[in-house]
């Protein structure tokens, strides 16, 4: 009960501060929009090329945008040493991670859903008929990115060269998520859409393993 109520209070704080400052959402939306638009104008892909390369491009844009979004996740707790105040206040430190990763997943998912119609129009790829399964893969992929990214953000926030460290650690670690998410999206955006269950299974397993690891070892990441 304590974990749930602490997570709830902290999630409220994360959402409130973000919707007041809009720092993370603005950065991610602008970044993904730029990648999608620039790629479309530069390569002017055909219908077939769009279906073939679109999912990979989309997930690469999501991944790089996430690395931008996750950077300040723990860094901004250092401005006023609020992380110490949180550590002194919560009975279960996992609540700090849980609130942050839920907030990051919500922000990332929100951005992805906002960008989907633009992608669909620019690349002439219909998405409405597969929106349900697409939402599931967006959710599972974003959750995986957020779990690993939140943990690595806590590590990199305490290190020197922290701006470099997070992408250096995050991108190789998330390569399997990128591959699986792209494969599933590729199947869904095919002329005859199909669900790549193996990819979905992999994403579920990745999320479960990393969430368990964070639950078990997260406390040590917050120590000074």
């Amino acid at each position, binding site marked *: 009960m*304590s974990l749930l*109520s*602490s997570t709830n*209070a*902290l999630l*409220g*704080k994360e959402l*409130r*501060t973000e919707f*007041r*400052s809009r720092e993370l959402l603005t950065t991610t939306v602008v970044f993904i929009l730029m990648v999608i638009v620039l790629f479309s104008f530069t390569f002017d892909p055909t219908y077939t090329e769009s279906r073939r390369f679109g999912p990979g491009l989309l997930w690469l844009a999501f991944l790089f945008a996430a690395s931008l979004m996750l950077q300040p996740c723990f860094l901004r707790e250092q*401005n*006023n*040493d*609020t992380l*110490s*105040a*949180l*550590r*002194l*206040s*919560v*009975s279960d430190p996992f*609540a700090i991670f849980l609130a942050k990763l839920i907030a990051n997943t919500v922000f990332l998912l929100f951005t992805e859903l906002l960008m989907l119609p633009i992608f669909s129009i620019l690349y002439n790829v219909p998405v409405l008929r597969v929106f349900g399964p697409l939402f599931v893969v967006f959710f599972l992929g974003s959750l995986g990115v957020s779990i690993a990214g939140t943990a690595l953000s806590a590590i990199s926030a305490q290190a020197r060269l922290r701006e470099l460290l997070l992408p250096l650690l995050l991108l190789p670690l998330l390569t399997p998520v990128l591959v699986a998410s792209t494969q599933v999206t590729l199947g869904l955006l095919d002329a005859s859409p199909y669900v790549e269950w193996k990819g979905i299974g992999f994403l579920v397993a990745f999320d479960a393993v990393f969430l368990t690891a964070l639950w078990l070892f997260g406390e040590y990441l917050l*120590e*000074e």
Partner: protein
Amino acid sequence: MTSPGFSPTGIRFENIEKRYGGLAALRRIRLEIAPGECVALAGRNGSGKTTLLRIAAGLVKPSSGELTFPSSSKVSRGAQATAPHGKNAAGFVAHATMVYDELTAEENLLLFAKLQQTPGTAARVDKLLHEVGLYERRASLVRTFSRGMRQRVAIARALLHEPSILLLDEPSTGLDPQGVAWLAGALRDLRDRGCTMLMSLHGESEISMLATRAIRLDAGMIVADTSTGAEVRSILTFADA
């Protein structure tokens, strides 16, 4: 500050050591602070004051040694600790405010009260906002506050769970004379109600006048410890010498 008295709790450092790699920040600190005592820590930058306070708060784990929080009755019997760490016993005020700029004063206090599962959350927050003189500004974002007002929010946050020990790390940093006077008054009131205080200070001020005991640290070791009035003033006056 009109709350009732505190349940008296002391702090006992038993051979506390803290090393960061090869650097010893604290060396075999043996120190007992009696319940209700107001102790000032003095010393140059890097002498170990902040590390000692953060260990007492439970934010930093010592490399070796033991930290205990004996209650007044148990101290007289030389008994064991009342808590394994400082989370429940101590309130911590640092020179960083430890509150969120993007939240209002009231939202900040409500958040930390919920996390600490403080009974009667809303009433407790209202009471503290009145006591620190910020009730009228409770709906303003903390980023719009002056340094002095932020420090008031920080004090209110540290007192939310009515801690019997207050740890203060250079609490007057950046405060103007009016801010220092307010802080000194608030701390005097807490001290008079039996709150145990351990604070790091630089030089003599209205706040240092509250100390009944002064300890000087140098290179992570206690080099002076006195409760004699004149010597307390002397240690605090020449802390940076």
